[in-house]
Every structure is written in C-alpha cells, then in structure tokens.
C-alpha cells in the first residue's frame, strides 16, 4: 500500500533522476551484494577439485589430506597440493580456485624472498600490497567491507524498530509517558559510549554480536527523537481527529494513519546512520576495540599502518575506501532528502 502510493513513486522517480545519488546507490548495492559472495570470489580454498576422476567441493565439505594422497587428517594446503606428485601426474586432475586465490587470513610469507618482510608494497601479485602478517590487503579489504556493511545494516534494522516504537510512544501518548521516557533517554545518552564498548568487551569478550548489541543499545536514540517529533505533530492532524471521531481505536490510528506519514524523515536519516556506524566501527577497529582479530576490517588495517608509516598502502587504500563509501552514501542521503523534499509543488500558489 505504501509503496504503490503515487507520492512514493514520484519521490523514487525524482531520486532516480539525481544521477549522482542513483549511481552511488547502485554502486554501493552492487558492491555489497558482490561482497556477500566473497568466499566464492577471494579464497584460498578452491571451488572445485577434480582428482582421479571424482569431483570434490572443498568449500562445502571437509576433505582431509589423505583423500588427495597426503598423510595428514587435516585439510590440505591447496596451493601446495597442485604441485604434489599425486596431483600433477595426471593432467586430468585440476583445481579451480576462485578469481582471487588469496584468503583473508592466508599469509604469504612463503612467497617472499629472503630480503622481503611483510608488509610488502603493491606489486603484480598483490594489487594493494600485503599487511603486517603478509596477508593480501585487497582480500582483507574485500571481506572487511562485507563485515562492516552487514554490521551496519543489522544495526539499522534494530535501531529503526526500537527507535520507532519508543519515539512513537513518546509522541503519541505524550504527557507522563513522554516525560519519563525522555528522562530515561537522557540518562542513557550520558553513558559514555566508548567506555561501554570497552566494558562490555572485557566482560563478555569481544565479538561481532556483543559489539552489535552494545551499539544497538545506544543507536536508537537518534531515531526516536525524529519519530517523537513526527508523532507529536501528526497526532494533532485533522485526519487523525477525523479517525477518532469515527471511533477508530488508538492502535489502528497509530499504524494506519500516523506511521505511514511519519516515515519520511526516517528514510532520509538512514544513510547518515549508515555512515555513522561504518565510521564508528572503523574507529573502534583502529583502536583495537572493535571486531576482534583475525577478522579483517579497514580500521584494523589503518591501525597497522599507523605503526608502520612507511607502509603507505596500509593507510592509503583503506582510508580511500572508507572515504569513498562515506561519500557515496552521503550522496545517496542527499538524493533521498531532495527527493522527499516537502516542497514538491512546482506551481507558485
């Protein structure tokens, strides 16, 4: 119902016309979707092995070395496998690696010559160089993108639900409900965010989930302010009064009348919320309090670079990527804001 609304359609069309915003949006969407398939694009585990007539899919199931003629029960080193006798004796045996045959945790120390120490500068083999453990920077950035975007998207999901419910309640019921919740929010927002992260991290150990839960605990506050304002305004709207005159109960009024009309600032707020969470997550990773190692992230790479300033690629590329994503997202945000602009009439009256 909401989406087929000609107003919404008109706004989407206006957004599309804003090429800068629209292409930024497509770019972010495309790169995110691609990054979801990261394990199939950049991995040191092959997609497919044909050995002695049978097909093996090492990504889907575990095959130990013995299967391929080795004598260990662990997973083989696939790169070395190619070179073993059992394999290379027949040309029928082949291994298909993903496009980028590096894993995000795979160190390439073996590939280095005598005088080379990680991190190495970008060259033919590693487009963006390697980090301080000899891991491919591009692959780490690729996976890191997936993690931070996913984190932000899940975060947005939760903060919207919580923010809309709480802000909506404040705005609609007003009076004591509003005052009480507002005081609670003020107490909550005076708790220093960084310290909470540290405390939660040291108490429960650092992990994606702990970080997400702690962050979500605070992030909904911004949205609740918007929703509170919108609900406050809309509860006095004449069509709401008309619905009350028909005897429509409160809950139906909230969902059918107020909520659809309150969504507008929410949509324009979301991209900026995304920027916020990506930035903060990167900052936390930079300081070492974010997503724990060895998980890849841009902030962590930049953190490595801080200690080895001569390894400019460790700072440069992740920073540039961070800057780009934030810039593109802000284009999307601006585009949405313009598309949803209240002054939609072009006549003068």
């Amino acid at each position, binding site marked *: 119902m909401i989406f087929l609304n000609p107003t919404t359609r008109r706004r989407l069309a206006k957004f599309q016309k804003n090429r800068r915003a629209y292409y930024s949006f497509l770019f972010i969407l495309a790169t995110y979707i691609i990054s979801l398939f990261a394990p199939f694009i950049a991995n040191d585990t092959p997609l497919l092995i044909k050995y002695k007539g049978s097909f093996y899919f090492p990504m889907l199931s575990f095959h130990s070395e013995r299967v391929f003629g080795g004598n260990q029960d662990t997973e083989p080193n696939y790169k070395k496998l190619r070179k073993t006798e059992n394999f290379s004796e027949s040309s029928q045996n082949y291994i298909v690696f993903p496009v980028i045959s590096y894993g995000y945790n795979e160190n390439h120390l073996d590939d280095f010559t005598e005088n080379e120490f990680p991190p190495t500068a970008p060259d033919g083999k590693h487009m963006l160089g390697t980090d301080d453990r000899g891991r491919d920077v591009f692959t780490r950035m690729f996976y890191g993108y997936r993690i931070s975007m996913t984190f932000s998207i899940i975060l947005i999901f939760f903060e919207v639900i919580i923010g809309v419910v709480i802000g909506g309640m404040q705005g609609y019921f007003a009076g004591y409900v509003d005052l009480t919740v507002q005081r609670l929010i003020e107490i909550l927002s005076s708790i220093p965010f960084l310290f909470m992260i540290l405390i939660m991290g040291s108490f429960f150990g650092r992990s994606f989930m702990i970080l997400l839960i702690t962050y979500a605990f605070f992030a909904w506050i911004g949205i609740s302010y918007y929703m509170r304002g919108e609900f406050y305004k809309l509860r006095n709207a004449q069509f709401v009064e008309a619905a009350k005159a028909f005897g429509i109960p409160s809950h139906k009024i909230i969902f059918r009348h107020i909520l659809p009309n309150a969504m507008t600032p929410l949509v324009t707020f979301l991209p900026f919320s995304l920027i916020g969470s990506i930035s903060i997550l990167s900052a936390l990773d930079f300081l070492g309090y974010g997503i724990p190692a060895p998980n890849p992230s841009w902030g962590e790479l930049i953190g490595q670079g801080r200690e080895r300033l001569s390894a400019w690629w460790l700072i440069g590329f992740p920073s540039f990527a961070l800057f780009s994503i934030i810039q593109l997202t802000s284009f999307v945000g601006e585009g949405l804001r313009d598309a949803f602009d209240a002054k939609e009439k072009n*006549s003068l009256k």
Partner: protein
Amino acid sequence: MTDLLRLENLSVHLLANHSSIPVLQDINFSVKEGEILAVVGESGCGKSLTSLALTRLLPEKVFSYHSGKILFQNKNVLEFSETELYSLRGGEIAYIFQDPFTSLNPIKKIKDQIIEPYIIHISPNKKEAIEKAESLLAKVGITDIKDRMEAYPGQMSGGILQRISIAMSLMCNPKLLVADEPTSALDVTIQSQLVDLLMEIRRENKMSILFISHDIGLVSSISDRIIIMYAGQIVESGTVDSVMDTPLHPYTTALLGAIPTIGDFSHKRLDSIPGIVPAPIDFPKGCHFHARCTKAMDICKTKNPLITGRESQSVRCFLYEGEQTKNA
C-alpha cells in the same frame, strides 16, 4: 478626470522549464484619481498576480512581462529604471496585504518598521518620521500610541496590526493603495471597522484604492467600479451598479447566484459551477470558461472572445459580440 493607472493589454507569462505559460492575458483596466476599483475572482484567477505586476514585484526569473503596458501617471512602469521603480514602490503606490503577521517583520519594533518608508522616500529625518507615524496611528484609531510603537507585531491582534499596516502605507502619501484581501483574515466586526477607515482615508486624501478580494459583497458595497477575473483574464468590468444589477457574463451571474442573501427565506438553491478553475498550464483553447459555462456555444471552444461594451460595463463573451465596438 485622468487615469492615475492604466493597464493596456498586459500579458504576463510564467517561465517554466523551457516554455512560457500565460498566467495573465490581455489585462485592460484603469483607475482614476480618488476611485476605488475592486478586483474580484476566485483563487487562481490571477488577481494577486495582477496587483504585484503593477510595480514589477513579480520575481524576474520566474515571470516575464510578455506584452502590454502599465501606465502610471502616463509613464510606462515596464520601462522604469531601478531607481524609478524603488521610488514608486511604497512612495506613490503602497500595498497592504492579507496577513499582517507575515507582512510585518515580527522581530522589529513597530516604530522601526513604520518609519522605514518615510526615511527611504521622503527624508532621512527620524524625528520627523516618528511624528508623522504617530499622527497617522492616531488617525487610524490606535490608542496607547507610545506603547504600540515600542511593541512587536506578535503582541497585538490582527485588527490592530492591519490598522498599523494601513498607517504605514500612508506614510508617503501614496496616490494609489493596493489592498490585497486586507480584511479577509479578520473578524467580521473588525472588518467593518477597517473598511470604514479605508473609506474615510480615501475621502480625506483623495487616494485611489485597488481593492482585491474574493468577497463580492464587501467590495460591491464600497467600490465605484469592479472587475471580475477568471483564469487570468478579465471577463467583465464596469460600474458596480451595472455589474451587480445586470451581470452579463455567465460566470458573473453564477458567482452572484452562489452567494446567499440574508433575509431571503425562499430557500432557493444556490448556483454552483461544476468543474474546477483551470491552472495556467491547463488554460483551455478558446474561452477559458467554456467548459463550465451553461451557455457555451461552439465558437466558445475554439476562439477567445474579445472585450465588448461601454465604459460603464464591458464583457468578454461571445453572447454579446457584435453589440458594441471593442473597448480599450
């Protein structure tokens, strides 16, 4: 009596994307010295645009004065230089608008606002200006003048503010007062007071008034002449008595029939006009009113009628064409 203001075949276009759409077409009227001319019409007819066009107040990038002349004291305003325009506005032609809360600056004291026109147009002597302001405020019936001067617009009621607006517009003794719905936002009893005040000022200063309103009853009681506008055109004009007692244009007739008369116990049905007023982008070919007219003929759909009639009453309608020569 000479014409103080005369509009000759004025057309104003709206510039949109790459085209220009007419919003005012072929506007012809005149205001003599000391005369009250009423401009009447429903919303979207262009009456406010006409009032702003007089002193080229329409934003330049959006509107273009496509053709015609605006003659004030026989000089064409469309050819005025910047300085001439500035001296015209507020000096010889003054405006009062509908909502005094937005037409007066809410963050400036009354004293500072009301002397502004005087300082700009007549003399930079602040003391003189304040004296004149106070005398005008007394004339428009404001009590506690010293307090009012020091106060801000938000502290007063609409009726008082509108009186202050009138006083402000009189600071430079204008020859023409353009009043755009000056009483529409006011209560009925206050409206009566303001209207009486305007009439008195007109009498004393021999000032002309261009009174724009949608309230036909009001303007017909105070004006000498009246113009009916519809969709950017003047459809009928003439002396108030002629137009009110013998309306010619079907729109005028319908409009008058839509207004109930107090004291009429007959319960006769009110005339309503089916359809809606077309926006400038949808102005029909031919007569702008033909789609809603009960007396429309074939020719009305394709050709725009010219104005025919005398000084005392003229109309733009094919029902009357051929009766008199065209009236400029």
